[in-house]
């Protein structure tokens, strides 16, 4: 077999595309033939040359391609984080909006809803505004019918607001309630 006939086999040998039996034959020949060894070196070099040919990729390559794909509706559009967040926040936002509306439309119920369980002490709820003393009290919101006991308390409000009078009456519960008011006034 002449060297010329080995050429194609050496090419296949370099590419790993010949049988194990052919590999043994080629390697045996290469060991014995200097000119075919030189040929093998050149063949390997041109293969390496192809692999060395590379180019850079433009920074906007991806952006351009994806824009074209989206324009042709070949690629689902990515939702923005804002839209995604809004979607998940929709339910709590709607609940908050409904609650706010409820408070606006129904102020009485709304106020009740934010008061401590059991509401304010009745005394505080129904005490009339004190223009003279300047004490800030919760505004009475309903003209409820007072019980006899409550009427009595209201009738003595001025007395109750006077610490000296309280001492005379010895009403421990009432003293405690208006103690704060006294402090504020001071």
């Amino acid at each position, binding site marked *: 077999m002449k060297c010329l006939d080995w*050429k194609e086999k050496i090419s296949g040998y370099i590419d790993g595309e010949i049988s194990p039996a052919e590999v043994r034959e080629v390697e045996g020949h290469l060991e014995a033939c200097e000119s075919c060894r030189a040929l093998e070196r050149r063949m390997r070099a041109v293969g390496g040359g192809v*692999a060395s040919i*590379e180019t850079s990729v433009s920074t906007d390559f991806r952006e351009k391609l994806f824009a074209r794909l989206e324009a042709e509706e070949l690629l689902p559009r990515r939702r923005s984080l804002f839209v995604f967040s809004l979607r998940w926040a929709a339910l709590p936002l709607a609940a908050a909006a409904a609650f706010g509306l409820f408070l606006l439309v129904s102020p009485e119920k709304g106020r009740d809803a934010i008061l401590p369980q059991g509401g304010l002490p009745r005394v505080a709820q129904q005490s009339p505004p004190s223009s003279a003393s300047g004490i800030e009290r919760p505004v009475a919101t309903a003209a409820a019918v007072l019980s006899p006991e409550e009427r009595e308390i209201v009738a003595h409000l001025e007395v109750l607001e006077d610490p000296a009078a309280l001492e005379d009456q010895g009403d421990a519960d009432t003293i405690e309630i208006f103690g704060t008011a006294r402090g504020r006034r001071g």
Partner: protein
Amino acid sequence: MRTDEELFELYRGGSRDAFEILFSRYHRKVIHFAYRMTGEQARAEEAAQETFLRVARAAGTWQPTARFSTWLYTIARRTTLNYIRDEKDGGEKVSILPGEEDKDGQPAPQLPGPKALNPEEMAWSAEVRERFAAALQRLPETYRAAFVLNRGEGLSYEEVASVLGITVQAVKSRIFRAREMLMESLAEILP
């Protein structure tokens, strides 16, 4: 890690993420392939863009039994072929001949050859690479495609045969002929 085929199936089902992973795996390879085939960066990028668009457009016709990479290279090769033909209509092709001259009529300069112990891992200088790229462009497209797919992209003879739609024996023959032509053309710079 998901296979290419699994990812492409997911893309066909509407997954953008699957397409993005496939893109990240293959876009450089496709661009390099197109560059090796066309020899021009701008043209290579255009061809690579067109390749991915065609892949997306033809997603419905892909058979899950086929290897995605082979299918992708088949589309890439056909796309670059169109670009090469377009160029050929307006330009000229020079055949590889020993002692050839450059396009401007000047004798080809003598360049220092690649130096390394392993011929496949030679340090190719920019000048030599340019010279090599030019020689590659002068190969007939059928030889160039077979050689680039095998040596540049790492496809086996069988895979190259599948991409080019020819027999394995024909691939073997084309790659051998491409090597011979390149060795003739680059004789003065090869070891």
